[in-house]
């Protein structure tokens, strides 16, 4: 064929040192080179090595400049994370179809910064470290990766819709933290929750958990106990060990009025951005409703204190006992601070509007709970009636019981169906012996002996819906009755006390709540923001936290002089379709939730001990393992990487792409694979802990490896000072690989030297068949090992490795062939020189249309005169896939193959 018509381009398959060398040679000659590599980065096996023989140079130091040269060469196009699908045509005119695998990361945007890696909750054994180290589902192959990009190891679709995240007001990464709990990574789980919620242990006891309502597993059997799981990290790990990050300080000051969840969340986020935050709290203790509204038996104050403490460690100052509007004015704050966040909640009680409600003994619910939690003495008498039907009423009733009341009755004007209190609370109250009188309302209180003695009630019936949408209760004439009481607690609802804000001109609603721009949290007064119950009226803790975070975001933008961007609304939680339910039920057998154990009733009502006992470690792991998202291997699409990626490079919807290339010739340089030696059971690999492979040893001594270069043996992490190397494991073996793998004699010698360098005096014993030191200065290298590096060579092929149960030392049995004696040798670590195999599948050989020999190496048409050709014209081979050889020989062959290739396509135009 006329050479002019041959494409002046080459496909090089395999980005190891041979592929890189061939690419550079050809590119420098002026040909266009496509370098295809199936892993995310070029570098190949050499990148895994610590040092190379015979110079003992650092492998990466030699390799990296070549990798950079290849990636920046104008004639070389790197196609990593790609595979060959089809090869058609003939020499000079090949068409190659290449599949570029979806990395789910847009490499045009990814900067290789690695921030994504920290948040990923999926932990996987790292193949690059031969399974010794771990990586995440999103990962970079190794620190010096070329191209320096991340890929996401997504193997299957997540089996659920992660409706939990969408339902959560702060979009906590629920699948992420549950996965971390399932992996026993409690500190990481706590930190992950803290990204969106600064009070994990507290909220994990009281949240109303809209996530659980939405949980897709609930459509199969029972929803995950997400709330109960949220407190697990704090139960299993000491949160007081959480480190305080170093943050650059700004010169801005923010005042926050109110230290409830909204104020604390805003303070947390603003402090993490470097602003100076001061919280003004009217009560003597911080925490807001968490501290004075929710009783100790639901949320122990010690837990809340620890979490508030951490926020203070971030630099936030909380001034308690200072009431804004009385002790200090809002105007003064506006003068002294750059921004203000009003989050005083809704602590004002509502009056009953019933005759006799001023009699001592009739108290307001919020005040009652506050007094109790601040340690004041409250006398509840023996017969207590609690008026109301919300969680506050239940809290008052259960608290009254614990303060010694004999009989506690809740009086509610509607029926159980309309009762706003949560089911768990109502059940808990009834279990504790508290009665509930439905469809009843007090009409009058009266005294006896100058004290509160009687409560007159009237029965109600349900009529048409009122303003709240619930049926209006209508008194039934003639149904009045009287009951004896000595204490009445009215828990009818809360209102915010916002008079002090009027002076500044802050716009208030008819109910007294502060009006804000819902997107930003800003009020009509510049510099003043608001959020939480003071804006919405009584709501839930997590809503207040969401409001605090929103305000912090806006305040930060305001302080930076940026326009205030509201948050984008999240999407609605999705449900499974019927077909999806059937499919998931087939795939995942039904498992009931793990119930939270509670203290025995009789004991627990005697004091304020926490009722929920918390999951044990086993219970936590069991419940966490029910999460559908975590059922798969690989990425669970929790979006944590997406959240942290500033260039916004994450693309979950990426698909594989197929491209077609036209090339004139192809060079196969796919390198070496490692033979699986667990079939040689006599060596105990996989069973005896301290028997490892040579490549695992390289990863241990390599400075960027899983132990950062510390030579630690697997069983106990001890430094081994007596190491045995066994050669020809799987090589020169009719039962496994008949051929000699060529490099092991030298690499074992090298590893003996490295071990000595790590710890001078280390003794290495190498059990060999022959010492194959066939290169330039190789024999001298071996001699040096004996002379300077305490290496001993014993000619024997051990028959069996046993283990010393006391210290996990492997014991090698061998025949010392020069004397004929059977001996045993105890070492602290045994390194097996595993056989190496050509890294090419039969499938790829068929795609390329080339033949392989009986050992899988490339079949060469004429060993003498055409050693680098394959059986297909136009395709050449070099490196280990061609035949067993070391790095210098592979590089030599690569240049040879480049020469052959150039010869094939050069010429003409």
């Amino acid at each position, binding site marked *: 064929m006329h050479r002019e018509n041959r494409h002046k381009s080459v496909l090089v398959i395999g980005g190891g040192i041979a592929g890189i060398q061939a690419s550079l040679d050809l590119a420098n000659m002026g040909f266009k080179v496509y370098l295809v590599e199936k892993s995310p980065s070029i570098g190949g096996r050499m990148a895994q090595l610590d040092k190379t023989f015979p110079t003992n140079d650092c492998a990466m130091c030699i390799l990296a400049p070549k990798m950079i040269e290849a990636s920046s060469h104008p004639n070389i196009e790197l196609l990593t994370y790609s595979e060959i699908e089809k090869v058609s045509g003939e020499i000079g005119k090949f068409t190659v179809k290449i599949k570029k695998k979806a990395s789910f990361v847009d490499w045009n945007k990814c900067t290789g910064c690695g921030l994504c890696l920290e948040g990923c909750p999926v932990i996987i054994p790292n193949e690059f470290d031969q399974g010794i180290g771990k990586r995440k589902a999103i990962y970079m192959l190794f620190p010096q990766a070329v191209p320096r990009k991340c890929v996401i190891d997504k193997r299957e679709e997540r089996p659920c819709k992660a409706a939990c995240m969408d339902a959560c007001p702060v979009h906590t990464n629920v699948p992420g933290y549950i996965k971390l709990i399932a992996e026993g990574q409690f500190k990481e789980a706590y930190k992950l929750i803290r990204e969106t919620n600064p009070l994990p242990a507290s909220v994990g006891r009281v949240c109303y958990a809209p996530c659980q309502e939405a949980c897709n597993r609930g459509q199969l059997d029972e929803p995950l106990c997400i709330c109960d799981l949220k407190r697990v990290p704090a139960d299993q790990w000491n949160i007081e060990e959480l480190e305080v990050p170093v943050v650059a300080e700004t010169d801005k000051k923010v005042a926050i009025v109110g230290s409830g969840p909204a104020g604390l969340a805003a303070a947390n986020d603003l402090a993490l951005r470097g602003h100076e935050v001061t919280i003004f709290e009217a009560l003597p203790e911080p925490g807001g409703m968490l501290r004075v509204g929710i009783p100790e038996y639901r949320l122990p104050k010690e837990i809340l204190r620890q979490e508030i403490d951490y926020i203070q460690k971030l630099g936030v100052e909380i001034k308690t006992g200072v009431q804004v509007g009385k002790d200090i004015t809002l105007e003064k704050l506006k003068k002294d601070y750059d921004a203000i966040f009003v989050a005083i909640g809704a602590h004002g009680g509502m009056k009953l509007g019933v005759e006799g409600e001023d009699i001592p003994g009739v108290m307001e619910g919020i005040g009652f709970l506050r007094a109790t939690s601040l340690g004041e003495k409250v006398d509840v008498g023996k017969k207590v009636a609690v008026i109301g039907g919300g969680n506050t009423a239940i809290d008052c009733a259960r608290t009254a019981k614990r303060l010694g009341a004999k009989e506690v009755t809740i009086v509610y004007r509607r029926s159980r169906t309309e009762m706003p209190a949560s089911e768990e609370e109502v059940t808990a109250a009834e279990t504790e012996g508290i009665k509930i009188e439905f469809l009843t309302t007090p009409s009058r209180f009266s005294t006896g002996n100058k004290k509160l003695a009687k409560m007159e009630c009237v029965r109600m019936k349900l009529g048409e819906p009122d303003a709240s949408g619930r049926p209006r209760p209508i008194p039934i004439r003639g149904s009045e009755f009287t009951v004896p009481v000595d204490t009445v607690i009215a828990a009818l609802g809360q209102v915010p006390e916002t008079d002090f804000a009027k002076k500044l001109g802050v716009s208030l609603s008819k109910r007294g709540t502060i009006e804000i721009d819902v997107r930003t949290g800003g009020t009509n007064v510049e510099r003043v923001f608001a959020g939480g119950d003071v804006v919405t009226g009584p709501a839930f803790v997590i809503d207040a936290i969401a409001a605090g975070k929103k305000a912090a975001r806006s305040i930060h933008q305001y302080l930076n002089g940026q326009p205030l961007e509201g948050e984008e609304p999240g999407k609605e939680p999705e449900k499974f379709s019927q077909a999806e339910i059937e499919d998931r039920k087939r795939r995942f057998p039904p498992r009931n939730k793990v119930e939270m154990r509670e203290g025995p009733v009789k004991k627990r009502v005697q004091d304020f001990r926490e009722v929920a006992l918390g999951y044990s470690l086993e219970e936590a792991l069991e419940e966490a393992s029910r999460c559908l998202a975590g059922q798969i291997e690989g990425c669970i699409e929790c979006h944590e990487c997406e959240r942290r990626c500033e260039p916004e490079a994450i693309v979950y919807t990426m698909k594989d792409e197929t491209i077609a290339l036209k090339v004139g010739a192809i060079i196969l340089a796919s390198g070496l694979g490692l033979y699986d030696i667990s079939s*040689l059971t006599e060596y105990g690999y996989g069973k005896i802990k301290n028997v490892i492979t040579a490549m695992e040893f390289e990863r241990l001594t390599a400075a960027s490896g899983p132990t950062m270069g510390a030579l630690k043996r697997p069983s106990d992490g001890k430094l081994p000072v007596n190491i045995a190397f066994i050669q*020809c494991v799987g090589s020169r073996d*009719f*039962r496994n690989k008949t051929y000699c793998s060529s490099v092991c004699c030298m690499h074992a010698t090298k590893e003996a030297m490295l071990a000595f360098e790590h710890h001078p005096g280390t003794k290495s014993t190498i059990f060999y068949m022959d010492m194959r030191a066939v290169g330039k200065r190789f024999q001298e290298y071996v001699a040096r090992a004996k002379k300077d590096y305490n290496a001993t060579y014993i000619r024997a*092929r051990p028959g069996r490795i046993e283990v010393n149960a006391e210290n996990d030392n492997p014991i090698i049995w061998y025949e010392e*062939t020069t004397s*004929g004696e059977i001996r045993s040798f105890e070492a602290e670590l045994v390194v097996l020189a595993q056989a190496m195999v050509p890294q090419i599948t039969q499938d790829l050989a068929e795609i390329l249309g080339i033949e392989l020999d009986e050992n899988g190496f490339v079949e060469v048409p004429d060993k003498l005169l055409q050693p680098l050709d394959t059986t297909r014209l136009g395709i050449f081979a070099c490196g280990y896939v061609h035949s067993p050889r070391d790095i210098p020989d592979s590089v030599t062959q690569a240049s040879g193959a480049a020469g052959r290739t150039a010869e094939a396509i050069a010429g003409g135009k």
Partner: protein
Amino acid sequence: MNLEDIIKETKTYYCLECGKCTAVCPVSRYNSNFSPRFMLERALMGFGDELIHDRELFSCLACYACSKLCPSDVDYPVFTQKVRNLASGEGEHGDCAHSGTLHTLMRLMSRSDIKQRRLDWLDGCRTSEKSEVLYFVGCAPYFQPVFEDIEVNPVNIARNSIKVLNALGIEPMVLPNERCCGHDLLWTGDVETFKKLAQFNAQMIKESGAKKLVFSCPEGYRTFKIDYPRYVELDCELMHITELLAQNLSTLSLRAKRSNPEVKLVTYQDPCRLGRHLGIYEPPREIIKAIPGIKLVEMEHSGDDSICCGTSAWTNCSSYSKEIRVERLSEAKATGAELMITACPKCQIHFKCTMADKGAEKGSDIKMEVMDLVNVVANAIDI
């Protein structure tokens, strides 16, 4: 045939002199005069004469621990067998234990005119004149008087084998003039006598019309399966009794002995001929696991890593053989088991012999109950 021919035929020239064989050889472990590698080396280096006249030529147990992992795929036992044949031509026979009684008995059986009275022990067993199944008895009746004093009852194994077959609904044939399978003679170099025994057996079995042969002795089984086809034609299915039992566990409704409510720990000695020679490791274990009242605990070296009982073909039995057995019995003891189950009558004989030896050497005071698996099954199903 000379030594060069043997080397070529067995391809032992591939030997790399690596010593892996010797490192795992149970004999080499104690007997420093024996090394499979060294034996081969002498053959390859031209010291054939020395090799043939070396007493240690007859020390190999043919247990296959070596060849199982030889990287050069050398079949050392077959090499040994052939060299022993050569050696026997030069008057070398190894030392047959028990004053040569047992080999003499085997040779006697190779006479065409021998009439044996060998089935008196059949009481309680149901056999048939014509059946598809033939139970090959082996030398049990002859071992009985020789080893009764150490409480081995080989005839019990034979009897219980037939009773267990009966429990499966099989009434097998037995040959009234059965000959020794010839295993021991083949492995000590007497191929000629072996051939004769093989021919007699093949003839009688053909005449019986049997379709399936059942063995309780692994050596007989191995010999029929692997060695006979070279010399005779036999068109039968061959099975070890443990294979048959493992296929019929549900039929055998195993009940625990009433007097044994506690679970007894037991261990299992893989016979070389059943295990490494024929690859049968699981069926005996399945049977043991199916028997209620006993729990299997494996020795440190088990399955294809098992250690031989220390003597083969009654030849070169020595203090080294005893050391092998003492270590193996120690391994059995270390599992905590009270009973060692085997599936080979010879294993039982050898272990019991060592335990009965009241010599003063270290470890010969080990006591371990040893029983054949067939007897254990027979006890469990109360027959």
